[in-house]
């Protein structure tokens, strides 16, 4: 510790601290600029922009820019401007490597495109508040560049305004590769195109030939030029070159006097031929350039579209399952790749289940690769630097707040530079959706926990009260009986109290057992034919004491059929309903049990002449532990929720309502077949 606080260390620490502060302030500035739409740059901090390309030189450039940014304490952004020309495979490879290098070095990465490279670079630079642009000396000299570009660097410097431009010299040793980088137009067009262009020129010439003496051979040149221009709109550069050359030759051979020779007699014809050839060529090349640009735009648009479609589909998906399905479908469509997800289990540990379907042969090893990728937040597996022997590739899903898991893909060739960028954009969208669902799930889980905690508290409060009262009664009565002498009458009433208290306890235990059976979802009704009279008999027998004070009215039609029920469960239902009626209706009133069979269902109604339910309590009376406020002590608020649970276990419905002239009516409807009694008796 003594040695730590040396001057050097302190200075270094101070620098680090200041840099952190600067970073933070800088972010705020940029945010502010974006919010207020202030065009850059503000020289509030240093921001380097390294323009990279698909050459090994760019790697050197990136490293150099990184060093520079480090020494300057500046942020670094790398930019790739998509060229019009197609990249060769080796160039794509190199570009991918360059982009990866930039990311590894902690630089941000952007890609842009535009017909004018200078303008594209400067656009980005202004938007990102760039202060320094670092660029390599351009080496790709092709015809178009030569014709259109003028001096690329000069333009960049001229238009850069107050942005500093660094130009890095190219490596001498790589000079030898110069010719490799001359961009050669691709002659990859199909053979039929060459044939078609030749045939079209031939045909045009043949058609024009008989009229040549009427319209004049100069006009023929215009017709041929016209045809070449049309060809250029839908053909590759090779066939266009062929068409241009061929049309010049044909024109010369067939039309320019002297005919049928390649000689040209007049000087102005030589000039015309030269101009013809040049215009045909330029026309063709420029048109195909426009088409390439158009193709690029179309590609980008297609990507933007598919990204948009993905985003929309993901935002509509609800639940992890749907998100997976949408994602897998989109990836299959766009990348032609099979994918699966492995997500974390909520405790930052990867589960060992592939979602949505385990489409791959997945081994223990693959899981370790997945776990590695998850832990280190880096891609792993095939075509990566880590564990490339695996048959699958694993990409971590980048969550913003939590780690989500990994995505597994099976690819036969690795994703190229721009493809990978697009892939990662895709992944970000998918990850966002997964994160949303995962966090939702977690929130739900904690809600459930909270609910069960609430339930536990209610249970504790309500049940502990309900348990204590009878226990107190029993203890008190037994104590009195044991330790003092009483008249026979007092003794009898104490015994009765004990018995009543134990009945109450027993009822509570029954209810608790039933509710826990319901909660655990283990209720499967044992359906059997039941005589509903038996139900009434059993229940009224069990509640004989309670019913003594009431007029019981049982209404069952004489042709009541047998119904399919779980006798025990419906007995409990009826018991709870009748018991409730005895508790809340005034003594001497009528309690009616009505049963009938209607519309393929068994209907059971219990009505009383009590106070009914308060209107605002009606929606809640079947909830667990719900008790109407101001009702008399005793009761746990479980009875009706058990009724509902048991009835629903029969796929039935229960409804509570108030009667017109006071009192409550509970109706239970249970779908049930009816037995044909007459058939059996015969």
């Amino acid at each position, binding site marked *: 510790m003594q040695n730590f606080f040396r001057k050097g260390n302190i200075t270094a620490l101070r620098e680090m601290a200041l840099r952190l502060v600067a970073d933070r302030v800088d972010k705020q500035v940029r945010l502010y600029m974006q919010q207020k739409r202030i065009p850059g740059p503000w020289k509030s901090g240093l921001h380097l922009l390294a323009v990279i390309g698909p050459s090994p030189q760019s790697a050197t450039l990136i490293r150099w820019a990184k060093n520079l940014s480090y020494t300057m304490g500046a942020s670094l952004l790398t930019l790739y401007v998509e060229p019009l020309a197609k990249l060769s495979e080796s160039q794509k490879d190199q570009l991918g490597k360059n982009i990866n290098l930039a990311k590894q070095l902690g630089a941000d990465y952007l890609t842009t495109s535009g017909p004018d490279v200078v303008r594209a670079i400067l656009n980005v630079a202004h938007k990102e508040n760039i202060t320094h642009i670092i660029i390599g000396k351009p080496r790709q000299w092709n015809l178009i560049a030569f014709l259109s570009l003028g001096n690329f660097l000069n333009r960049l410097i001229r238009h850069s305004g107050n942005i500093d431009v660094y130009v890095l010299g190219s490596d001498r040793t790589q000079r030898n590769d110069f010719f490799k980088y001359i961009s050669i137009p691709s002659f990859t067009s199909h053979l039929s195109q060459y044939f078609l262009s030749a045939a079209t020129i031939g045909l045009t010439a043949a058609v024009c030939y008989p009229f040549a003496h009427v319209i004049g051979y100069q006009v023929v040149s215009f017709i041929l030029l016209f045809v070449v221009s049309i060809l250029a709109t839908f053909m590759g550069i090779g066939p266009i070159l062929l068409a241009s050359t061929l049309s010049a030759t044909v024109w010369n051979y067939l039309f320019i006097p002297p005919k049928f020779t390649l000689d040209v007699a007049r000087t102005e014809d030589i000039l015309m031929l030269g101009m013809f050839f040049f215009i045909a060529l330029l026309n063709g090349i420029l048109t195909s350039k426009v088409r390439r640009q158009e193709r690029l735009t179309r590609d980008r648009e297609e990507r933007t579209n598919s990204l948009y479609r993905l985003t929309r589909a993901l935002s509509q998906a609800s639940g992890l399952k749907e998100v997976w399905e949408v994602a897998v479908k989109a990836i299959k469509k766009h990348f032609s790749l099979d994918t699966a997800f492995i997500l974390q289990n909520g405790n930052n540990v990867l589960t060992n289940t592939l979602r949505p379907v385990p489409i791959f042969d997945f081994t223990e090893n693959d899981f370790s690769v997945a776990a590695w990728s998850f832990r280190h937040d880096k891609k792993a597996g095939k075509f990566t630097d880590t564990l490339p022997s695996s048959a699958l590739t694993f990409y971590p899903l980048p969550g913003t707040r939590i780690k989500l898991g990994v995505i597994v893909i099976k690819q036969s060739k690795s994703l190229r530079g721009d493809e990978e960028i697009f892939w990662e954009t895709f992944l970000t969208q998918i990850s966002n959706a997964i994160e949303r669902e995962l966090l939702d799930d977690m929130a739900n889980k904690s809600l459930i926990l909270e609910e069960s905690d609430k339930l536990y508290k209610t249970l504790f409060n309500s049940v502990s009260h309900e348990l204590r009262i009878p226990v107190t009664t029993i203890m008190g009565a037994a104590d009195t009986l044991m330790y003092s002498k009483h008249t026979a009458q007092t003794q009898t009433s104490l015994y009765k109290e004990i018995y009543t208290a134990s009945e109450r306890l027993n009822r509570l235990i*029954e209810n608790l*057992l039933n509710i826990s059976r319901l909660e655990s979802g283990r209720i499967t009704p*044992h359906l059997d034919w039941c005589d509903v009279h*038996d139900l009434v008999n059993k229940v009224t027998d069990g509640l004989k004491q309670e019913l003594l004070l009431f007029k019981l009215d049982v209404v069952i039609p004489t042709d009541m059929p047998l119904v399919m029920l779980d006798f025990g469960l419906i007995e409990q239902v009826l018991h709870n309903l009748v018991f409730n009626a005895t508790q809340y209706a005034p003594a001497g009133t009528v309690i009616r049990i009505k049963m009938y069979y209607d519309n393929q269902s068994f209907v059971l109604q219990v009505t009383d002449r009590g106070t009914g339910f308060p209107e605002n309590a009606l929606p809640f009376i079947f909830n667990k532990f719900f008790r109407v406020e101001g009702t008399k002590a005793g009761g746990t608020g479980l009875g009706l929720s058990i009724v509902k649970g048991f009835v629903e276990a029969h796929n039935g419905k229960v409804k509570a309502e108030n009667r017109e002239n006071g009192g409550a009516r509970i109706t239970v409807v249970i779908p049930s077949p009816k037995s044909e009694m007459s058939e059996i008796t015969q």
Partner: protein
Amino acid sequence: MMETEHSILIIDDEVQIRRLLEITLSASSYKIFEAVTGNEGIISAASYSPSLILLDLGLPDADGAEILKKLREWYNKPIIILSVRNAEDDIVHALDNGANDYLTKPFRSGELLARIRSALRLTTTPGNESLLTFGTLIIDLAKHTVKKNDETIKLTSTEFSLLALLAKNAGKVLTHQFILKEVWGQHYIGQTQYLRVFVAQLRKKLEENLTHPTFIITESGIGYRFGN
């Protein structure tokens, strides 16, 4: 009040239940033996040969149903099962495996004594009497006639077989499947609607008050018992 002293073996692991049963049953002049585990119960049953066994189905050392099976290999006197509620399947299984009756905890002492009395009586009076009398109801098994308040009640032959089966086992619970097998035959096991319909018909002919039957009593989810 007992002519011969009956002995009862209680097999239950709960000391409080054993104590309660001992007090209740001793007060009714039964001689009591106690066993805490199933295996101890089997040994006690073999050494004391009690007139009746009260067997708890939820024993710690062995499944009550297993103990019942072992006991039934040689013990032919009544066994009454003690069980908890909502265990209808276990009870039916035990009854089909030779238990004579059942009681669910918590039970009333009066109920327990009634079950014990009826189980003991059924063993002491083997069913060779042809005339069964239950209050105003007289069933003549030999002549296939039933009289109530001296009036003859017309029954179909199936109705009579059902009534006779229940009456011969008065006080004892008979499971649905047992009754179906005895009255209708092996093929009718599971066809409870027959049983329901015929019980309903019998009740209409026999009972005074259909909402409070006293002769044919329903045992929820288990079977029927003929009241006495």
